[in-house]
């Protein structure tokens, strides 16, 4: 799978993307991570494993996901043509399942009987609970107490699927604390437990492994746009929290120097207010959750609480490969405020009859800005990473009403 980008060989053998990434975990986890890396390297070369993964992605997830030309929205914007990669149409409603399917198959091959995960918006938790149900594995999902309140429906879905959802009450009670708690569980029950991390962050091999499972997005998109238009897009746009849908789209295009890459972070109430979740735009490098990357931290190195309208982007770190793509200049990282994302959410809903997730709405908002500065002959490909059904309560509350 690492053949997508022949000249780009990150991470190195020890999991580094330039100065980023690596393995910053307590000693107890070092050998288990070594075992995971070995298993991952073996199985991703094994035809039977890859065939099973492909069959699951086709028959269970519903891949390939369509590439949709947003014709009416494009006309409204009057600039570049916008194509949407429809990850919202996957089973469970987002790109997250591409990765959980892969890691759960790996867990099964490694003989693990128990799966744990952290979740912010609940999409990764649902995607994990889903594959655990299908494979008959015990599943525990850690979720911040605040996130549980704002994503009630997903909590209910996970419980229906048979997962135990454990509220996390420490620290800021959001995604970063759920990750801490999942790590603590893993340290304690490492013998029978597989930790399915939901994004391209964490200790090696997770950033590379999750990228490889998500790269199916970019492989399909590259093929589809070539078939449809006979050429590569001028720009790719994807939202970045931890960054798994963005890296999944970008990775197979990294060698295509003519394709500009835009990762869109959450500017929350504005980068100047400090109430945001944009470490690449406004943070600095540090070490958290097993890897070195850009972080939101104070002058003492304590991790800051973040803010975003979208729970899935509300994280103070970001995958180390994005940190490297930022520093190397291959990708550009920008930020979109809550109100801009919300506007894009409504615009796409009305223009195309597609209700996007608030996370993906950040990418849409930036794509709209970009499109209007570009020529109608040019092409922007946006990763529509998830659907917005889960966000009805948030959007209704902001409109001053609530659901019946």
């Amino acid at each position: 799978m690492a053949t997508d980008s022949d000249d780009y060989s990150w991470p190195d053998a020890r999991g580094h993307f330039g100065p980023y990434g690596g393995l910053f975990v307590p000693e107890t986890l070092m050998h288990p991570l070594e075992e995971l890396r070995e298993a991952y390297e073996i199985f991703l070369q094994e035809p039977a494993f890859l065939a099973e993964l492909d069959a699951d992605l086709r028959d269970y997830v519903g891949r390939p996901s369509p590439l949709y030309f947003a014709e009416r929205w494009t006309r409204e914007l009057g600039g570049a043509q916008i194509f949407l990669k429809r990850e919202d149409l996957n089973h469970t409603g987002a790109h997250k399942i591409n990765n959980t399917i892969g890691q759960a198959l790996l867990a099964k091959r490694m003989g693990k009987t128990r799966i744990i995960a952290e979740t912010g918006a609940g999409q990764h938790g649902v995607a994990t609970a889903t594959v655990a149900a299908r494979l008959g594995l015990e599943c525990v999902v850690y979720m911040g107490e605040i996130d549980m309140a704002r994503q009630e429906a997903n909590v209910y879905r996970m419980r229906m699927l048979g997962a135990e959802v454990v509220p996390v009450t420490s620290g800021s009670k959001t995604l970063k604390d759920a990750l801490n708690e999942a790590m603590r569980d893993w340290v304690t029950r490492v013998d029978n437990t597989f930790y399915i991390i939901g994004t391209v962050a964490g200790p090696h091999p997770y950033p590379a492994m999750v990228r490889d499972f998500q790269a199916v997005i970019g492989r399909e998109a590259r093929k589809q746009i070539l078939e449809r238009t006979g050429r590569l897009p001028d720009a790719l746009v994807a939202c970045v929290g931890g960054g798994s849908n963005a890296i999944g789209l970008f990775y197979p295009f990294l060698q295509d120097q003519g394709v500009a890459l835009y990762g869109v972070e959450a500017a929350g109430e504005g980068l100047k207010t400090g109430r945001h979740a944009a470490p690449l735009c406004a943070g600095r490098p540090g070490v958290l959750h097993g890897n070195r990357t850009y972080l939101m931290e104070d002058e003492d190195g304590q991790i800051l609480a973040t803010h975003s309208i979208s729970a899935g982007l509300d994280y103070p770190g970001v995958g180390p490969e994005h940190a490297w793509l930022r520093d190397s200049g291959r990708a550009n990282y920008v930020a979109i405020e809550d109100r801009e994302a919300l506007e894009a959410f409504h615009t796409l809903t009305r223009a195309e009859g597609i209700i996007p997730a608030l996370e993906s709405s950040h990418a849409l908002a930036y794509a709209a800005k970009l499109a209007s500065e570009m020529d109608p002959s040019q092409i922007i490909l946006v990763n529509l990473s998830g659907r917005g059904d889960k966000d009805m309560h948030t959007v209704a509350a902001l409109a001053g009403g609530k659901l019946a």
Partner: protein
Amino acid sequence: MSRIAERLATLKAWDQTALIPFITAGDPNPEVTVPLMRALVEAGADLIELGVPFSDPMADGPVIQRASERALAHRTSLRHVLSMVHAFRQADLDTPVILMGYLNPIEVLGYAQFAEQAREAGVDGVLVVDLPPEESQELAAALRAVGIDLVYLIAPTSTEKRIRAIGEQASGFVYYVSLKGVTGAGHLDLDAVAEKLEEIRQNISLPVGVGFGIQDAETAAAVARVADAVIVGSALVKRMESLAHQPDRMENVLRDFLGTLRAAIDRVDQERSA
């Protein structure tokens, strides 16, 4: 020879097991830390482990997490912790002090600057929970240059190959994490600890401290039978927590509790030399 190595060698010569209490700096407020460190020494501490509070302590159980939160409520930073060690050193030039914490606050300060300031303050050792040997070369070099020991963890999951690699880099002592779990967990398996220590000693000549599951005098004594040093953290911090609103009683309670551990360990040492 570092202050840590010297202290542990002296104890070994006298057939004594070291007692290493852990408290979080700044818990429940920064004013109490230095007097508490002095009280711990008077109650029988041979070395002191001082926790540097961090917002995301992923290897710690709820007791030490809450201690970190209390300390951070007073904005206890790494710089403050260093100034506490400096204050402690004004009256105690003998008791080794080891800082225990996570990497990010050190990254922010910068390795060379941290090493220099730690040396000036009188720090003897540093244990960084999320810094395994694979990633530690740079910090190890900075600390070595100023004569500070970098203390490594060894875990029940560490393979013999890893133990050997850790032995090649470690100085002062190595810290065996006695169970798979977070600090303060309660499922210590003493036979398994004894067996693993055997494996560690075959590969590493440094003294071995054992911590993570020691709750009371009984477990402290049991660990003293096999280890060179007994490390007690959560059990102490839990007692401090119960007195959060009566900080003036804290010193006596800590003194009493550490005293019972000291007595239990001393009995083991006497039995052994008898």
